């Protein structure tokens, strides 16, 4: 028996092992259960090694991934930097375009407001010489430009045309020592001659000592030079010093303060009145002030804002002068808004008097003081403006806005 077992030992062991596994399988299938112990051993043997390999793989892959990502990031950074540079240049170009458009709009606005006939031009070159200041503009004789014509911007005068070519003109700047123009002060209408100094400033000559001209006062063209029409801004007085017989007055020209790129050449000048106030900045929209009396009034109330009330007041004053708003060529006189109209900007008259006085104020009923409220309408303090041939030449008579209504 023992020998038989020894002889068939291997096959017996095989059968036992196979049988045991079959039993194990049958038990699992029958009970639908597992043999956790065997599985735990196997998984415990494999899992740590697999985990280590996976960690190594992740580390290696992560290293190479990071390396290539870093390379890509560097490349991307370089590309983005180039893109940013390109966009910066493009942005700058667009800003310049926008600035040009805004300046063109400003020129167009100025051109529309001003009665003088002008043509737009672009400064294409600066031709500075020894002590001279001039620029080249892209309009010449083909565009109707002639020697001696005035060149201006909305900010002020720029210079005069000193040489004309077919497609370009040379303009002498107001700061050039050879430049001269007749000017007039804003407040006391003191007349003088503007001359360039070769620097960024100019001076006003021939203003006798004793004639009052203030520091910071605005200077306008007087029209006496027959080049610049009257009423164009020239600049602001920066210093006034008493001399022996004349005053030394320095002016900071407003037209050349910012090196204009677009200018207007006046081909048909029309004189204007000296403005009451120096031209300020472009008007901006302002919302109604919260501090007004009716700021708490609901929208369903009268619905009148201070601006509406002011417009209504101006409309009534205009109606009192039989002025029709929106009609009239450029340069025609506006209504006198300083006119005192009873019930509008002056206390209403008592009833007995209103019976004899027409409801609509008549021009004759306007007091003389109200009819000419502007002190500038009085004879100028310095000297009356000299008549020039250009005052008769314009399409409209020389404006006298400060005089009473006809």
């Amino acid at each position: 028996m023992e020998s038989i077992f020894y002889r068939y030992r291997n096959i017996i062991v095989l059968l036992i092992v196979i049988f045991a596994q079959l039993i194990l399988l049958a038990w699992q299938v029958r009970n639908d259960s597992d043999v956790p112990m065997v599985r735990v051993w196997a998984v415990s043997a494999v899992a740590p090694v697999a985990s280590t390999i996976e960690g190594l793989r992740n580390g290696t892959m992560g290293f190479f991934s990071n390396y290539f990502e870093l390379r890509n990031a560097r490349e991307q950074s370089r590309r983005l930097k180039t893109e940013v540079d390109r966009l910066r240049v493009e942005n700058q170009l667009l800003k310049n375009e926008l600035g040009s458009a805004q300046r063109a709009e400003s020129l167009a606005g100025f051109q529309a407001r001003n009665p003088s006939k002008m043509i737009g031009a672009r400064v294409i070159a600066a031709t500075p010489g020894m002590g001279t200041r001039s620029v080249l503009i892209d309009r010449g004789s083909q565009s109707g430009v002639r020697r001696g014509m005035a060149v201006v911007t909305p900010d002020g005068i720029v210079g005069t045309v000193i040489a004309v070519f077919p497609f370009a003109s040379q303009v002498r700047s107001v700061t050039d020592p050879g430049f001269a123009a007749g000017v007039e002060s804003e407040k006391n209408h003191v007349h003088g001659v503007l001359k360039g100094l070769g620097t960024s400033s100019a001076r006003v000559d021939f203003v006798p000592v004793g004639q009052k001209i203030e520091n910071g006062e605005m200077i306008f063209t007087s029209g006496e030079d027959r080049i610049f029409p009257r009423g164009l801004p020239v600049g602001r007085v920066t210093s006034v010093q008493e001399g022996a017989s004349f005053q030394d007055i320095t002016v900071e020209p407003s037209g050349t303060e910012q090196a204009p790129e677009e200018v207007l050449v006046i081909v048909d000048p029309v004189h204007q009145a000296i403005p009451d106030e120096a031209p300020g900045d472009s008007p901006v929209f302002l919302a109604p002030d919260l501090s007004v009396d009716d700021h708490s009034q609901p929208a369903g109330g009268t619905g009148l804002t201070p601006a509406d009330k002011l417009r209504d007041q101006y409309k009534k004053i205009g109606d009192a002068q039989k002025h029709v708003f929106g009609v009239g060529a450029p340069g025609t006189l506006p209504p006198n808004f300083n006119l005192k109209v009873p019930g509008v900007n002056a206390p209403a008259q008592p009833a007995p008097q209103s019976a004899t006085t027409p409801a609509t104020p008549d021009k004759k009923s306007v007091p003389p003081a109200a009819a000419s409220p502007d002190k500038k309408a009085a004879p100028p303090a310095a000297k009356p403006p000299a008549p020039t041939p250009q005052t008769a030449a314009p399409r409209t008579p020389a404006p006298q806005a400060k005089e009473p209504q006809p």
Partner: protein
Amino acid sequence: MATGNRIMVDSARQVRSAAYPVWVYFAIPLLALLIQVYLPLFETLRFISRIELPLLVTIYFALMRRSQLRGLAIGMTLGLAQDSVFQQHIGMYGICKTLVGYFSASIGMQFDVEHALVRLILCFLFYLFHQFFYWVLQRSLLDQPAVFDIRTELILGALNAVIGVALFHLLDKLRKKE
């Protein structure tokens, strides 16, 4: 590896059992299992699941150890471990590989198992036997609708045989010097 044309055992050297360092008996089966369960995780390496590395390792050690009991033990251990790791009923691969290990050792005593052609044929035949027996167990014991596609299995058998020959050649390097 044998260089002669004879494939039957004809010398004492050919009958002698090969010896390996102890770590080889642990590391190689573990590595085979690891490759079998780990590499198919990656999409591009999924084909590795079709290569029965634990079976090839079982055949190799059973052939080279020339002991039926040792072949049986190696086959049973690797089979049960494979069952455990593959999350299936324990005993399916165990029974198949137990039989493969036993028969491999039996044949290893008759042939010159260092001959490449013998290794190629044995790997091919034992692969087919393993797959067929596994299919039988699936159908009979587990009542699973398994399919045994003979053409696919023949191709895979040839592939496994070729890989087995290369693997055996590598594993021969781990043998202890005589």
